[in-house]
């Protein structure tokens, strides 16, 4: 017999209006189904729309198109059977642990004794016994997130939404909380029927989820769906676990199909309108050095180098992709491979590095080339920042334009391709006196 799924999203689309009347598409063609007894992971980089989807499910915002159904009925506003755990805990600092937990029940106007019984039970379950009268600020991060869990569980939700619940915690604490959660889940001691977990941590997704939806960016969409059939508790060192992790890396580094010509595969926008990432030259140089050195010698497995450098995908991918944009490296099949100039850069001294970097910057970053050309052409060899901002705003939002130009300034300064004076907001070719 086919049950109604707990949750069903079909062809969900979400776009935000931009000030100029156009719209910013953050989610498209999103299909998702959550059945009883499942943990579904939404895995992706920041900006891939996974948190946006979670907020649609939580009823905190509405889809522009498509439908989100909970138990067969469309979600309008926060639904009674769906509770959420937040990345930053979102506890009310002026309420004690008990009051924080009881708040959701107060909102339901439950009777006082019932609130007390249920709150204390939830506090008990999640291992907060003895902390009832503490204020959040007296607690460690791990304990605070336990309050976050207790607060969500106390309303006896059918679906628990978790928005990167462990990412604000240190590695050890996160592991403890994950294990505790999985224990409660597999023993069926929590009053929940299904879980949706948003994460950017690949291992966390493989560790916890029954199904993983891998998200891609620009606009946010599902790249692929993986089933994880490994029995719980899972072992990170298990070869089939590693294989799954590797597979996801491959998925996430695969070139998007059918990208428009002239478009950078990884970054939105075209030509000088490409939105540049905020990556410092130290990180770029550091990653090239790490890949060039032993044991990688120019080609590194991404999961391997991520764990060697203790970087999460949100830290590692932007750096790797920037290297790719600058044609210092190639990403393919979950590997990063330095190209000739990348290797040369890694093995050079500072002055030679700057020369190589300048050549690549002016060849492969159209905005940098454009700034340089304008400065060269003018007799004064100087130009206002607002001139470039105006041009960029034809392609992107004000904020993105600001950030993109800041990235260009950062790289241009390192390459000594041009100078920038923040006080007067002027670009020039002069070196500071």
């Amino acid at each position, binding site marked *: 017999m086919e049950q109604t799924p707990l949750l069903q999203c079909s062809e969900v689309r979400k776009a935000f209006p931009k000030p100029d009347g156009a719209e910013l598409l953050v989610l498209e063609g999103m299909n998702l189904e959550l059945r009883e007894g499942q943990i579904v992971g939404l895995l992706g980089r920041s900006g891939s729309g996974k948190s946006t989807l979670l907020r649609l499910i939580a009823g905190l915002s509405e889809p522009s198109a498509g439908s989100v159904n909970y138990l067969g009925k469309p979600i309008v506003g926060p639904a009674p059977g769906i509770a959420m755990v937040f990345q*930053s805990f979102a506890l009310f600092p002026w309420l004690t642990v008990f009051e924080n937990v009881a708040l959701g029940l107060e909102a339901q106007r439950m009777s006082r004794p019932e609130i007390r019984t249920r709150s204390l039970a939830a506090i008990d379950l999640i291992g907060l016994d003895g902390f009832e009268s503490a204020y959040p600020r007296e607690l460690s991060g791990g304990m605070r997130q336990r309050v976050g869990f207790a607060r969500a569980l106390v309303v006896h939700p059918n679906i628990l939404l978790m928005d990167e619940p462990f990412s604000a915690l240190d590695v050890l604490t996160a592991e403890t909380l994950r294990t505790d959660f999985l224990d409660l889940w597999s023993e069926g001691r929590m009053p929940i029927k299904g879980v949706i977990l948003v994460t950017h941590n690949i291992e966390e997704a493989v560790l916890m989820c029954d199904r993983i939806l891998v998200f891609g960016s620009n606009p946010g969409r599902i790249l692929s769906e993986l089933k994880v059939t490994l029995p719980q508790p899972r072992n990170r060192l298990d070869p089939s676990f590693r294989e799954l992790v590797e597979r996801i890396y491959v998925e996430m580094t695969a070139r998007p199909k059918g990208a428009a010509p002239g478009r950078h595969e990884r970054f939105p926008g075209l030509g000088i309108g490409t939105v540049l990432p905020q990556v410092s030259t130290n990180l770029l140089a550091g990653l090239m050095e790490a890949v060039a050195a032993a044991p990688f010698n120019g080609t590194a497995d991404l999961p391997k180098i991520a764990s060697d450098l203790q970087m999460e995908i949100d830290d590692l991918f932007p750096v790797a992709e920037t290297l790719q944009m600058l044609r210092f490296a190639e990403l393919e099949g979950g590997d990063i491979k330095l190209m000739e100039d990348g290797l040369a850069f890694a093995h050079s001294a500072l002055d030679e590095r700057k020369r190589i970097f300048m050549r690549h910057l002016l060849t492969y970053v159209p905005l940098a080339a454009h700034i340089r050309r304008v400065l060269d052409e003018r007799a004064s060899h100087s130009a206002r920042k607002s001139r470039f901002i105006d041009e960029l705003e034809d392609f992107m939002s004000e904020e993105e334009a600001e950030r993109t130009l800041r990235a260009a300034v950062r790289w241009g300064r390192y390459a000594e391709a041009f100078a920038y004076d923040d006080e007067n907001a002027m670009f020039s070719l002069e070196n500071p006196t």
Partner: protein
Amino acid sequence: MNRFEPYVFLRGLASRWDVLAFIVVIGLIVFLGETSRGLFAPLAQLQQTPLSLDPARLPEYAARTTFRMLAALFLSLVFTLTYATWAAKSERAGKLLVPILDILQSVPILGFISITVVFFMSLAPGRVLGAEFAAIFAIFTSQAWNMAFSFYQSLRTIPVELTEAAASFRLSPWMTFWQLEVPFGMPALIWNMMMSMSGGWFFVVASEAISVGHTTVALPGVGSYIALAIANKDLGAIGWAIATMLIVILLYDQLLFRPLVAWVDRFRVEQEPGVRVPQSWALTMMRRSRLVQAATVAFHAAVLWTSRAVKRTDAPLAEEAPAKRRSLDLLWVSLIVAALVLGLWHIVVVLIRQTPLHEAAQVCGLAFLTMLRVFILIALASVIWVPIGVWVGMRPRAAQFVQPVAQFMAAFPANLLFPIAVSGIVAWKLNPDIFLSPLMILGTQWYILFNVIAGASMIPAEMRYAAANFRVTGWLWWRKVALPAVLPFYVTGAITASGGSWNAAIVAEIATWGDTQVEAKGLGAYIAEATTAGDFHRIVLGIGTMSLFVVIINRVFWRPLYYYAERKFRMT
């Protein structure tokens, strides 16, 4: 079994803290009853029982003044919670309400009283109540705008995740307001309340003895006592008044603000490490007392109970249909336009048409004089207080001592120094245009000191070590380390001081001692004279000009300076 008990206060009888709390609470109730008794007395009674300079009457006068302050504080709180909430919640209303608040802030506080006293007296004709209203309203105007702004800012900066948490646990709007928005805004609100209270003391003195044209009212209170002492040239009475002010301000600080500041500490979302937790014996008393605990729990229960009682709509907020939205927008815009036209018409017909050109030129000239005075005084005060503030700020123990003293000085009313100023000017035949000026900055210079101390105490220790390590000393140290580090704080203080000085000009540019009067040329003196003469047209003209000057100076000078300092020198 030692289980958790959320309602502990119900157990046991009373503690010694209860006795203390009981005395304080009952005392407060008696005090409120006693002081409000005179409110419905007819005005004639005021004239029959004239004020007395007998120091024995001072406690009663002080109690009445305190009552006015409390009433104004309460009204300000009500205004803040409604006006600021409306401005923050409704995009449409906010567009108008926020600029209005900004303008109201720059209208001189004593200007309000000159204009409104007749209106309030007419509300309760022949009764003291009307005059009380006017005085309370004047104090209200010295606090409400600040507080509303602070709460508005808080409402706009609530972390998104907290709002989302409230929504996802389906708190009703009413519950969200009391459980999230008010607590979140509380720390900034209390801080602002305390700061503007200092200003309040300054103006309560001016607002109790009101004389607009033929309407002369002297409400029993410390302010009227001071006015009478000045009129009678009674130095002894001035001394008593100073002592009373000291005690009252001290009590306010210890019994009201210190507990509030300590209590509100728990509402802070961000806990900066190393910040000293404020302490208050009065708060300890209240916390330990079961009676007070019971009261707070009762309040909490009331909030919850009303949350249950208030009908809650489970349906989501329906997005306004575009058509309806557009017509509402249209309605709103046409309302604003109508108000604008009406206002303009009044300004043109009543004010401008009846103002001869030479009068307008004269008022502008006077405003320039006052402006010059304010700027010179701020510069002088900065030269004196910035180095001292930096010195004090780097020494936490000195700061602990200086802060409360400065806070008291900020609340010290300028008229208490009239005897010295007037006698000095008359005895040595000094130029009042110059020597009355210091009175203007008497209370406001302390804001510069406060802020610089705060800034200097936040200079990171490592930065100071680095400076010492590289032997950055002397003038170089001031230029490259201390001054840039305190600049954003200094600018904040200077803005407050400048605004306050404009306000004080109305009191400070004319000083009387008995029947001797010395006067400085300036807009403040112009307004004060017009008020005494009851010449409404000139009052409005003077006040309008002053507001205009303050707004323009803020926009073209202070605000850009503030943003510059914030952007360039704020350490994050």
